[in-house]
């Protein structure tokens, strides 16, 4: 716990100092890493912890991007537009969660598989609001400068990680993981699994909502294809699996690794990049189900440290 806080503080300090040390291209790469961390933590909150896989989280990113862009054009300041985008995405998640999470089993995953497409179709067809396939170009004068966007996304990523840390240490987090391990048993011991699942899902939607708005301000142009992006769904899944689902640092690590892979392959071969992610997904699920962070934990520890930790947790000596 204490070491998590120390690591968090160190990373945060580095990230705060970064704009002074790097050029603007490097800064925009870092900005995207931070955005991916926020998205990965969002997916981690619902899918990493409960095991209910969301294949459609990009829809909240898209809704956030459009909300943010339209409000900015209407004269709302960028931070208020971002907050509104987060709220709208959250509000949208509620009916979706109510419909699909009351049931156990694969229905949630199946329903979410098409949700992003519904969002994209809506943005394309509702021309009066979204200007359809032409997309929305934001006036540069309205946009926050790159550094402001960077710090806003840093705040979001930090908030997301802090939030996941708080959930992991809470009774709610235990309940969510109990759902993943054995939903029937969790129900038997009095966990309100339906409420927990819906709560986690709705809470997880605010992060991509805000991230979408901030992305729109950073990119200054959005269209249905660029924000209701199927590849984003894939990336969210891979980041969390690769890093370690249901853990605090797994998604952070996964997002960083993914951005590394993306820098190497995305620009030249987008299809190859995605095919690689598919391979990675299968390999991780089959051979490293707890992600890269589990590699460290598997190392045998000196006996003294184990019992120390046991005492700390109030457990018996092994």
């Amino acid at each position: 716990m204490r070491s998590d806080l120390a690591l968090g503080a160190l990373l945060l300090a580095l990230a705060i100092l970064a704009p002074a040390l790097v050029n603007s291209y490097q800064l925009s790469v870092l900005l995207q890493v931070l955005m991916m961390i926020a998205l990965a933590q969002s997916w981690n909150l619902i899918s990493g912890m409960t095991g209910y896989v969301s294949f459609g989280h990009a829809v909240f990113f898209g809704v956030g991007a459009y909300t943010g862009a339209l409000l900015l054009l209407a004269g709302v300041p960028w931070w208020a537009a971002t907050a509104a985008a987060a709220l709208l995405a959250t509000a949208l998640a509620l009916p979706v969660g109510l419909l699909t999470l009351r049931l156990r089993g694969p229905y949630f995953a199946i329903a979410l598989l098409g949700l992003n497409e519904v969002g994209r179709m809506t943005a394309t067809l509702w021309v009066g609001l979204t200007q359809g396939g032409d997309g929305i170009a934001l006036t540069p004068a309205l946009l926050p400068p790159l550094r402001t966007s960077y710090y806003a996304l840093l705040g979001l990523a930090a908030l997301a990680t802090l939030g996941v840390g708080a959930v992991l240490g809470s009774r709610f987090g235990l309940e969510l993981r109990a759902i993943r391990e054995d939903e029937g048993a969790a129900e038997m011991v009095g966990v309100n699994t339906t409420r927990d699942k819906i709560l986690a899902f709705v809470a997880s939607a605010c992060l991509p909502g805000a991230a979408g708005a901030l992305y729109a301000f950073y990119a200054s142009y959005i269209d249905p294809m660029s924000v209701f992006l199927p590849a984003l769904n894939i990336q969210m899944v891979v980041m969390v699996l690769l890093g370690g689902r249901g853990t605090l640092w797994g998604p952070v690590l996964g997002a960083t690794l993914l951005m590394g892979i993306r820098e190497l392959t995305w620009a030249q071969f987008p299809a190859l990049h995605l095919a690689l992610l598919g391979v990675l997904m299968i390999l991780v699920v089959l051979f490293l189900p707890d992600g890269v962070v589990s590699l460290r934990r598997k190392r045998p520890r000196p006996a003294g440290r184990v019992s120390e930790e046991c005492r700390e947790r109030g457990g018996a000596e092994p």
Partner: protein
Amino acid sequence: MDLLQPGVLFQLAVGGLLAGALYALLACGLNLVFGVMRVINLAHAELMMIGAFIAWLAWRYAGLHPLLALPLAMLLLYGLGLVLQRLLIERIVEREELTSLLVTYGLSIILVNLGLLVFSADFRAVPTLQGAFYLEGLDLVISKPRAVAGAVSVVLTLAVYAFLRYSRTGKAIRGVSEHPEVAMICGIDVARIRGITFGLAAAMAGAAGVMLSTIYSFSPDTGADFILKCFAVMIIGGMGNFLGALLGGLLLGLAEALVGGVLSTQWAEAVAYLLLVLIVRPTGLLGQADAL
């Protein structure tokens, strides 16, 4: 032309049922795999796309008629299905549901993107069947490719149903579906049966792909539209229920055609999604309450 005239509605309904037969063929395979090993194969529609591309390659480079490419595609996909089952699915059958969703999702991503790398995102078609039948007595026009695709789909679906019902292997498949442990005790090689099941489902998907290639233009990522429809069909008919999926497929085709004719084709695309929300009755029309 008044769209609500009985004659026009009849015309739409027949067209819809023919399209629905294709959904049924595809969804029955998906349902079969789910019934036997509780694996939801998110790459099922990509197996269909492989079938469509086999038909296209056979037609383009060997001049083979799609109906002749049909057995070839089914055979190749049966083999591919066996290999995939051995390499991937068998490893995850006993594991939690999340695992099979993620592995088959990964597989679908790989297949789509390899398809895009090899064939690009261009749309293709196999326009070998053309023209239409005119049934004078009924005042009905049916396009030839749709009629053939619909008929082949229905025949294949019923053939697989008969195979499951009457053949020894089919009975073993149903046995494993009902209770794997008991089936094992009765001397059924469960892993082998799972392999045959997955191969059979892949062959059905391949056949659906060949038929699809004769009526639609397609690209490597066309499968995404179909997998959702498949799930809608599965949920309408009841998960794991073979005949339910046949009925569900026909119903979806019918609903899409009527909505498309009366409202617009864009709404028709939304029908499947609206039906998916029928999740409020998750057991479907013919499904067992304890199917999951």
